[in-house]
Protein backbone atom coordinates (compact mmCIF):
# COMPACT_ATOMS: atom_id res chain seq x y z
CA UNK A 1 0.00 0.00 0.00
CA UNK A 2 1.28 3.49 -0.88
CA UNK A 3 1.76 5.82 2.11
CA UNK A 4 -0.60 8.70 2.89
CA UNK A 5 0.38 11.87 1.02
CA UNK A 6 1.67 14.88 2.90
CA UNK A 7 0.79 18.36 1.61
CA UNK A 8 3.92 18.66 -0.47
CA UNK A 9 3.50 15.25 -2.11
CA UNK A 10 -0.12 16.08 -2.83
CA UNK A 11 0.81 19.42 -4.41
CA UNK A 12 3.41 17.61 -6.53
CA UNK A 13 0.81 15.05 -7.64
CA UNK A 14 -1.69 17.73 -8.72
CA UNK A 15 1.03 19.69 -10.52
CA UNK A 16 1.95 16.56 -12.48
CA UNK A 17 -1.64 16.16 -13.69
CA UNK A 18 -2.00 19.66 -15.17
CA UNK A 19 -1.68 19.40 -18.95
CA UNK A 20 0.97 21.31 -20.88
CA UNK A 21 -0.08 24.82 -21.84
CA UNK A 22 -3.03 25.08 -19.45
CA UNK A 23 -4.43 28.29 -17.99
CA UNK A 24 -4.95 27.59 -14.29
CA UNK A 25 -6.25 29.36 -11.19
CA UNK A 26 -4.87 28.05 -7.90
CA UNK A 27 -7.08 28.88 -4.93
CA UNK A 28 -6.01 30.47 -1.68
CA UNK A 29 -4.40 28.13 0.86
CA UNK A 30 -3.23 24.62 0.06
CA UNK A 31 -3.63 24.85 -3.76
CA UNK A 32 -1.17 27.77 -3.87
CA UNK A 33 1.60 25.27 -3.10
CA UNK A 34 1.01 23.52 -6.45
CA UNK A 35 2.87 26.34 -8.21
CA UNK A 36 6.11 25.23 -6.52
CA UNK A 37 6.01 22.07 -8.65
CA UNK A 38 5.08 23.46 -12.06
CA UNK A 39 8.15 23.27 -14.25
CA UNK A 40 8.62 26.08 -16.80
CA UNK A 41 8.68 23.54 -19.67
CA UNK A 42 4.99 22.85 -19.01
CA UNK A 43 4.21 26.44 -20.05
CA UNK A 44 1.34 26.72 -17.60
CA UNK A 45 -0.06 30.22 -17.15
CA UNK A 46 -1.41 31.14 -13.74
CA UNK A 47 -4.46 33.39 -13.39
CA UNK A 48 -5.13 35.32 -10.21
CA UNK A 49 -8.67 36.66 -9.91
CA UNK A 50 -7.60 40.07 -8.66
CA UNK A 51 -6.56 40.76 -12.23
CA UNK A 52 -3.50 39.08 -13.70
CA UNK A 53 -2.36 36.31 -16.02
CA UNK A 54 1.26 35.20 -15.95
CA UNK A 55 1.68 35.33 -12.19
CA UNK A 56 5.12 34.28 -10.97
CA UNK A 57 6.32 32.94 -7.60
CA UNK A 58 5.90 34.76 -4.29
CA UNK A 59 8.04 37.88 -4.06
CA UNK A 60 10.99 37.96 -1.69
CA UNK A 61 12.96 40.81 -0.12
CA UNK A 62 13.45 43.67 -2.59
CA UNK A 63 11.00 42.13 -5.10
CA UNK A 64 8.07 42.86 -2.76
CA UNK A 65 5.75 45.46 -4.31
CA UNK A 66 2.43 46.22 -2.55
CA UNK A 67 0.91 46.94 -5.98
CA UNK A 68 1.52 43.35 -7.10
CA UNK A 69 -0.37 40.80 -5.02
CA UNK A 70 -2.30 37.58 -5.55
CA UNK A 71 -5.85 36.72 -4.52
CA UNK A 72 -4.57 35.76 -1.06
CA UNK A 73 -3.10 39.30 -0.82
CA UNK A 74 0.44 37.89 -0.81
CA UNK A 75 3.13 39.81 -2.73
CA UNK A 76 3.97 37.94 -5.94
CA UNK A 77 6.03 38.49 -9.09
CA UNK A 78 5.20 38.77 -12.78
CA UNK A 79 6.60 36.50 -15.49
CA UNK A 80 7.47 37.62 -19.04
CA UNK A 81 4.20 37.76 -21.01
CA UNK A 82 2.14 38.71 -17.97
CA UNK A 83 -1.00 40.83 -18.41
CA UNK A 84 -3.10 42.92 -16.02
CA UNK A 85 -6.84 43.51 -16.39
CA UNK A 86 -9.77 44.79 -14.35
CA UNK A 87 -12.18 42.73 -12.29
CA UNK A 88 -14.96 42.45 -14.86
CA UNK A 89 -12.44 41.08 -17.38
CA UNK A 90 -10.90 38.78 -14.79
CA UNK A 91 -14.22 37.12 -14.04
CA UNK A 92 -15.25 37.07 -17.69
CA UNK A 93 -12.13 34.93 -18.15
CA UNK A 94 -13.63 32.49 -15.64
CA UNK A 95 -17.31 32.48 -16.53
CA UNK A 96 -16.53 32.61 -20.22
CA UNK A 97 -14.90 29.18 -19.96
CA UNK A 98 -11.42 30.39 -20.85
CA UNK A 99 -9.68 28.92 -17.80
CA UNK A 100 -8.82 25.25 -18.13
CA UNK A 101 -8.60 24.33 -14.47
CA UNK A 102 -9.40 25.84 -11.10
CA UNK A 103 -8.01 24.09 -8.04
CA UNK A 104 -9.72 24.94 -4.76
CA UNK A 105 -9.92 23.79 -1.18
CA UNK A 106 -13.21 22.47 0.19
CA UNK A 107 -15.18 21.90 3.36
CA UNK A 108 -17.29 19.25 1.61
CA UNK A 109 -17.75 17.75 -1.84
CA UNK A 110 -20.85 15.70 -2.64
CA UNK A 111 -20.86 12.50 -4.65
CA UNK A 112 -22.63 14.49 -7.36
CA UNK A 113 -19.81 17.05 -7.53
CA UNK A 114 -21.44 19.82 -5.48
CA UNK A 115 -18.87 22.03 -3.77
CA UNK A 116 -19.11 23.66 -0.33
CA UNK A 117 -16.14 25.80 0.58
CA UNK A 118 -17.24 29.31 1.54
CA UNK A 119 -19.32 29.15 4.68
CA UNK A 120 -19.78 26.83 7.63
CA UNK A 121 -23.34 28.08 8.04
CA UNK A 122 -22.80 28.67 11.75
CA UNK A 123 -24.92 31.57 13.00
CA UNK A 124 -21.99 33.68 14.24
CA UNK A 125 -19.78 33.06 11.19
CA UNK A 126 -19.16 36.07 8.93
CA UNK A 127 -19.88 34.94 5.38
CA UNK A 128 -17.16 35.72 2.83
CA UNK A 129 -17.31 34.23 -0.65
CA UNK A 130 -14.75 36.13 -2.74
CA UNK A 131 -14.35 34.55 -6.17
CA UNK A 132 -15.12 30.98 -5.12
CA UNK A 133 -18.60 30.76 -6.67
CA UNK A 134 -17.42 32.25 -9.96
CA UNK A 135 -14.45 29.89 -10.11
CA UNK A 136 -16.54 26.85 -9.25
CA UNK A 137 -18.88 27.30 -12.20
CA UNK A 138 -16.54 29.11 -14.55
CA UNK A 139 -13.46 26.98 -15.05
CA UNK A 140 -13.72 24.12 -17.54
CA UNK A 141 -12.65 21.76 -14.79
CA UNK A 142 -12.88 22.31 -11.04
CA UNK A 143 -10.49 20.24 -8.98
CA UNK A 144 -10.53 20.11 -5.22
CA UNK A 145 -7.47 19.66 -3.05
CA UNK A 146 -8.16 18.84 0.59
CA UNK A 147 -7.77 16.38 3.42
CA UNK A 148 -10.29 13.56 2.98
CA UNK A 149 -11.39 13.71 6.62
CA UNK A 150 -11.85 16.53 9.12
CA UNK A 151 -9.65 16.68 12.21
CA UNK A 152 -12.36 14.80 14.08
CA UNK A 153 -12.39 12.11 11.38
CA UNK A 154 -15.60 13.05 9.56
CA UNK A 155 -15.55 12.42 5.81
CA UNK A 156 -15.51 15.48 3.54
CA UNK A 157 -16.86 13.47 0.61
CA UNK A 158 -20.55 13.13 1.43
CA UNK A 159 -23.76 11.97 -0.26
CA UNK A 160 -25.17 15.54 0.09
CA UNK A 161 -23.37 18.63 1.37
CA UNK A 162 -24.62 19.88 4.74
CA UNK A 163 -22.73 23.17 4.43
CA UNK A 164 -24.07 25.95 2.17
CA UNK A 165 -23.12 25.28 -1.46
CA UNK A 166 -20.55 27.20 -3.49
CA UNK A 167 -21.66 25.57 -6.74
CA UNK A 168 -23.69 22.62 -8.02
CA UNK A 169 -22.28 19.69 -10.03
CA UNK A 170 -18.96 21.41 -10.62
CA UNK A 171 -16.20 19.30 -9.05
CA UNK A 172 -14.67 16.72 -11.38
CA UNK A 173 -11.70 15.58 -9.29
CA UNK A 174 -10.73 15.44 -5.65
CA UNK A 175 -7.08 15.22 -4.69
CA UNK A 176 -6.68 14.27 -1.05
CA UNK A 177 -4.15 12.78 1.34
CA UNK A 178 -5.86 9.36 1.11
CA UNK A 179 -7.26 9.18 -2.41
CA UNK A 180 -7.62 10.71 -5.83
CA UNK A 181 -11.28 10.53 -6.79
CA UNK A 182 -12.89 11.26 -10.15
CA UNK A 183 -16.48 12.49 -10.16
CA UNK A 184 -18.64 12.01 -13.21
CA UNK A 185 -22.44 12.00 -13.38
CA UNK A 186 -22.84 11.12 -9.71
CA UNK A 187 -20.34 8.26 -9.89
CA UNK A 188 -17.22 8.55 -7.76
CA UNK A 189 -14.34 6.56 -9.21
CA UNK A 190 -11.29 5.79 -7.12
CA UNK A 191 -8.18 6.53 -9.16
CA UNK A 192 -5.51 6.03 -6.53
CA UNK A 193 -5.39 5.23 -2.82
CA UNK A 194 -2.80 6.28 -0.28
CA UNK A 195 -2.54 4.58 3.11
CA UNK A 196 -6.09 3.22 3.03
CA UNK A 197 -7.71 0.15 1.51
CA UNK A 198 -10.69 0.33 -0.82
CA UNK A 199 -12.81 -1.48 1.77
CA UNK A 200 -11.82 0.92 4.56
CA UNK A 201 -12.43 3.96 2.34
CA UNK A 202 -15.87 2.63 1.44
CA UNK A 203 -16.78 2.06 5.09
CA UNK A 204 -15.56 5.53 6.16
CA UNK A 205 -17.34 7.34 3.28
CA UNK A 206 -20.67 5.83 4.26
CA UNK A 207 -23.43 6.46 1.81
CA UNK A 208 -21.08 7.36 -1.07
CA UNK A 209 -21.04 4.76 -3.83
CA UNK A 210 -17.47 4.19 -5.01
CA UNK A 211 -16.39 2.60 -8.27
CA UNK A 212 -13.20 0.61 -8.00
CA UNK A 213 -9.87 2.02 -9.14
CA UNK A 214 -9.52 2.12 -12.88
CA UNK A 215 -6.54 0.04 -13.91
CA UNK A 216 -5.73 2.10 -16.97
CA UNK A 217 -3.99 5.45 -17.30
CA UNK A 218 -4.06 8.18 -14.67
CA UNK A 219 -5.81 10.77 -16.80
CA UNK A 220 -9.03 8.82 -17.08
Amino acid at each position, binding site marked *: MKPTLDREALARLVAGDIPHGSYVNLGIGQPTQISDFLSPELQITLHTENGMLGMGPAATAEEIDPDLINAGKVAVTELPGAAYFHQADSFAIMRGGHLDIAVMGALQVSAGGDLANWHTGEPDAIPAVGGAM*DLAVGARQTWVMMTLFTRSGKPKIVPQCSYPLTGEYCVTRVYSDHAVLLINDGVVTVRELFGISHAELESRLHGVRLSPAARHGRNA
Partner: protein
Amino acid sequence: MRLRLADADEAVADVRSGSSVLVGGFGLAGQPVELIDALLRTDADDLTIISNNAGNGDTGLALLIAHDRVRKVICSFPRQVDSWHFDAAFRDGRLELEVVPQGTLAERIRAGGAGIGGFFTPTAYGTPLADGKEVRVIDGRGHVFETPIRADAAMIKAHLGDLAGNLVYRKTTRNFGPIMATAAETTIVQVSKVLPVGSLDPEMVVTPGIYTDVIVESA
Protein backbone atom coordinates in the same frame (compact mmCIF):
# COMPACT_ATOMS: atom_id res chain seq x y z
CA MET B 1 -18.84 67.32 -16.27
CA ARG B 2 -15.43 68.91 -16.90
CA LEU B 3 -12.48 67.54 -14.97
CA ARG B 4 -11.72 69.30 -11.72
CA LEU B 5 -8.24 69.23 -10.15
CA ALA B 6 -8.53 69.33 -6.37
CA ASP B 7 -6.85 68.43 -3.13
CA ALA B 8 -8.22 65.44 -1.24
CA ASP B 9 -10.43 67.47 1.12
CA GLU B 10 -12.03 69.48 -1.70
CA ALA B 11 -12.47 66.31 -3.73
CA VAL B 12 -14.60 64.49 -1.15
CA ALA B 13 -16.54 67.54 0.09
CA ASP B 14 -19.58 66.61 -1.96
CA VAL B 15 -19.90 63.13 -0.45
CA ARG B 16 -22.87 63.64 1.89
CA SER B 17 -24.30 61.57 4.70
CA GLY B 18 -26.42 58.76 3.32
CA SER B 19 -24.41 58.54 0.08
CA SER B 20 -23.46 55.32 -1.64
CA VAL B 21 -19.75 55.15 -2.44
CA LEU B 22 -17.86 52.72 -4.64
CA VAL B 23 -14.39 52.30 -3.11
CA GLY B 24 -11.67 50.78 -5.26
CA GLY B 25 -9.05 48.29 -4.19
CA PHE B 26 -8.48 44.63 -3.51
CA GLY B 27 -7.30 44.68 0.09
CA LEU B 28 -4.96 47.66 0.22
CA ALA B 29 -3.80 47.30 -3.42
CA GLY B 30 -5.56 50.12 -5.24
CA GLN B 31 -7.41 51.36 -2.17
CA PRO B 32 -7.62 55.19 -2.32
CA VAL B 33 -6.43 55.64 1.26
CA GLU B 34 -5.78 59.40 1.00
CA LEU B 35 -9.33 60.01 -0.27
CA ILE B 36 -10.78 57.87 2.52
CA ASP B 37 -8.67 59.77 5.08
CA ALA B 38 -10.12 63.00 3.68
CA LEU B 39 -13.65 61.56 3.93
CA LEU B 40 -12.94 60.77 7.59
CA ARG B 41 -12.20 64.47 8.13
CA THR B 42 -15.74 65.34 6.98
CA ASP B 43 -18.85 64.52 8.98
CA ALA B 44 -20.38 62.26 6.33
CA ASP B 45 -21.93 59.15 7.85
CA ASP B 46 -24.71 56.65 7.15
CA LEU B 47 -22.70 55.62 4.08
CA THR B 48 -23.24 52.57 1.91
CA ILE B 49 -19.84 51.32 0.82
CA ILE B 50 -19.43 49.05 -2.19
CA SER B 51 -15.97 47.52 -2.23
CA ASN B 52 -14.39 44.09 -2.60
CA ASN B 53 -13.35 43.89 1.04
CA ALA B 54 -14.41 45.59 4.25
CA GLY B 55 -11.16 47.14 5.35
CA ASN B 56 -7.71 45.96 6.33
CA GLY B 57 -5.75 46.78 9.46
CA ASP B 58 -6.13 50.26 10.93
CA THR B 59 -6.14 52.29 7.74
CA GLY B 60 -8.44 53.49 4.96
CA LEU B 61 -11.80 51.73 4.73
CA ALA B 62 -11.19 49.95 8.05
CA LEU B 63 -11.07 53.34 9.84
CA LEU B 64 -14.24 54.52 8.13
CA ILE B 65 -15.97 51.46 9.60
CA ALA B 66 -14.24 51.85 12.99
CA HIS B 67 -15.58 55.42 13.21
CA ASP B 68 -19.15 54.27 12.54
CA ARG B 69 -19.48 56.19 9.31
CA VAL B 70 -20.77 53.17 7.43
CA ARG B 71 -24.34 51.87 7.54
CA LYS B 72 -24.00 49.09 4.99
CA VAL B 73 -21.20 47.25 3.19
CA ILE B 74 -21.74 45.49 -0.13
CA CYS B 75 -18.69 43.33 -0.76
CA SER B 76 -17.44 39.86 -1.68
CA PHE B 77 -14.97 39.13 1.07
CA PRO B 78 -15.32 41.01 4.36
CA ARG B 79 -13.67 38.50 6.66
CA GLN B 80 -9.89 38.61 6.49
CA VAL B 81 -7.05 38.14 8.95
CA ASP B 82 -6.82 41.91 9.44
CA SER B 83 -10.51 42.93 9.22
CA TRP B 84 -10.96 43.39 12.99
CA HIS B 85 -12.84 46.70 12.70
CA PHE B 86 -15.39 45.20 10.31
CA ASP B 87 -15.70 42.02 12.38
CA ALA B 88 -16.39 44.00 15.56
CA ALA B 89 -18.92 46.34 13.92
CA PHE B 90 -20.73 43.44 12.24
CA ARG B 91 -20.92 41.33 15.40
CA ASP B 92 -22.19 44.36 17.36
CA GLY B 93 -24.92 44.81 14.77
CA ARG B 94 -23.59 48.27 13.88
CA LEU B 95 -23.60 47.64 10.15
CA GLU B 96 -25.45 45.71 7.51
CA LEU B 97 -23.66 43.33 5.14
CA GLU B 98 -24.57 42.17 1.64
CA VAL B 99 -22.20 39.48 0.38
CA VAL B 100 -21.92 39.26 -3.41
CA PRO B 101 -19.68 36.86 -5.34
CA GLN B 102 -16.66 38.79 -6.57
CA GLY B 103 -17.35 38.29 -10.26
CA THR B 104 -21.00 39.16 -9.81
CA LEU B 105 -20.02 42.30 -7.88
CA ALA B 106 -17.70 43.31 -10.72
CA GLU B 107 -20.31 42.62 -13.40
CA ARG B 108 -23.06 44.45 -11.47
CA ILE B 109 -20.80 47.52 -11.33
CA ARG B 110 -19.87 47.12 -14.99
CA ALA B 111 -23.57 46.85 -15.88
CA GLY B 112 -24.32 49.95 -13.81
CA GLY B 113 -21.74 51.93 -15.70
CA ALA B 114 -22.74 50.53 -19.07
CA GLY B 115 -26.47 51.18 -18.86
CA ILE B 116 -27.42 47.51 -18.66
CA GLY B 117 -30.55 46.74 -16.67
CA GLY B 118 -29.26 43.48 -15.22
CA PHE B 119 -27.99 40.10 -16.40
CA PHE B 120 -28.26 36.36 -15.85
CA THR B 121 -25.13 34.63 -14.50
CA PRO B 122 -24.51 30.98 -13.63
CA THR B 123 -22.57 32.09 -10.55
CA ALA B 124 -24.34 31.29 -7.26
CA TYR B 125 -27.11 29.24 -8.90
CA GLY B 126 -28.28 26.63 -6.38
CA THR B 127 -26.56 28.41 -3.48
CA PRO B 128 -27.91 30.56 -0.62
CA LEU B 129 -26.70 33.70 -2.44
CA ALA B 130 -29.38 33.07 -5.08
CA ASP B 131 -32.19 32.97 -2.50
CA GLY B 132 -35.10 35.18 -3.49
CA LYS B 133 -33.65 35.99 -6.91
CA GLU B 134 -35.17 35.30 -10.30
CA VAL B 135 -33.62 32.23 -11.94
CA ARG B 136 -33.75 30.97 -15.49
CA VAL B 137 -32.37 27.91 -17.26
CA ILE B 138 -30.41 29.02 -20.32
CA ASP B 139 -28.91 26.38 -22.63
CA GLY B 140 -29.58 23.76 -19.96
CA ARG B 141 -27.78 25.64 -17.24
CA GLY B 142 -29.25 27.49 -14.26
CA HIS B 143 -28.67 31.23 -14.12
CA VAL B 144 -29.43 33.91 -11.52
CA PHE B 145 -30.68 37.40 -12.34
CA GLU B 146 -28.48 40.17 -10.93
CA THR B 147 -29.16 43.89 -10.90
CA PRO B 148 -26.78 46.73 -11.78
CA ILE B 149 -24.99 48.77 -9.14
CA ARG B 150 -24.54 52.52 -9.41
CA ALA B 151 -23.44 54.88 -6.67
CA ASP B 152 -23.42 58.56 -5.80
CA ALA B 153 -19.63 58.61 -5.80
CA ALA B 154 -16.68 56.44 -6.75
CA MET B 155 -13.35 56.84 -5.02
CA ILE B 156 -10.55 55.03 -6.82
CA LYS B 157 -6.78 55.04 -7.11
CA ALA B 158 -4.87 55.08 -10.38
CA HIS B 159 -1.18 55.41 -11.10
CA LEU B 160 -1.00 58.31 -13.55
CA GLY B 161 -3.65 60.69 -14.78
CA ASP B 162 -3.55 63.55 -17.25
CA LEU B 163 -5.50 66.80 -17.24
CA ALA B 164 -7.97 65.24 -19.67
CA GLY B 165 -8.80 62.71 -16.93
CA ASN B 166 -7.25 59.76 -18.74
CA LEU B 167 -5.91 57.13 -16.35
CA VAL B 168 -3.41 54.31 -16.28
CA TYR B 169 -3.04 51.93 -13.39
CA ARG B 170 -0.14 50.01 -11.91
CA LYS B 171 -0.04 46.19 -11.75
CA THR B 172 -2.79 44.55 -9.68
CA THR B 173 -4.03 47.90 -8.31
CA ARG B 174 -6.16 48.15 -11.46
CA ASN B 175 -8.72 45.71 -10.02
CA PHE B 176 -12.04 47.60 -9.57
CA GLY B 177 -10.83 51.04 -10.69
CA PRO B 178 -11.82 50.98 -14.38
CA ILE B 179 -15.35 49.66 -13.74
CA MET B 180 -16.07 51.79 -10.66
CA ALA B 181 -15.00 54.88 -12.59
CA THR B 182 -17.95 54.28 -14.94
CA ALA B 183 -20.68 53.65 -12.37
CA ALA B 184 -20.93 56.79 -10.22
CA GLU B 185 -22.45 60.24 -10.46
CA THR B 186 -19.08 61.65 -9.39
CA THR B 187 -15.83 59.78 -9.92
CA ILE B 188 -12.98 60.94 -7.70
CA VAL B 189 -9.53 59.63 -8.57
CA GLN B 190 -6.35 59.66 -6.54
CA VAL B 191 -3.21 59.41 -8.70
CA SER B 192 0.49 59.52 -7.88
CA LYS B 193 1.07 62.15 -10.57
CA VAL B 194 -1.07 64.43 -12.75
CA LEU B 195 0.47 64.94 -16.19
CA PRO B 196 -0.17 67.57 -18.89
CA VAL B 197 -2.63 66.70 -21.65
CA GLY B 198 -0.87 64.66 -24.32
CA SER B 199 1.56 62.96 -21.95
CA LEU B 200 -0.18 59.58 -22.00
CA ASP B 201 -0.03 57.40 -25.10
CA PRO B 202 -3.69 57.18 -26.22
CA GLU B 203 -3.16 53.49 -27.05
CA MET B 204 -2.23 52.80 -23.44
CA VAL B 205 -5.04 54.69 -21.69
CA VAL B 206 -7.11 52.29 -19.56
CA THR B 207 -9.81 54.65 -18.28
CA PRO B 208 -10.74 57.37 -20.78
CA GLY B 209 -11.10 60.82 -19.25
CA ILE B 210 -14.85 61.05 -19.83
CA TYR B 211 -15.36 59.01 -16.67
CA THR B 212 -13.12 61.11 -14.40
CA ASP B 213 -14.72 64.08 -12.59
CA VAL B 214 -12.21 65.01 -9.91
CA ILE B 215 -8.51 64.20 -9.84
CA VAL B 216 -6.24 64.45 -6.82
CA GLU B 217 -2.47 64.22 -6.90
CA SER B 218 -1.17 62.29 -3.92
CA ALA B 219 2.48 61.29 -4.12
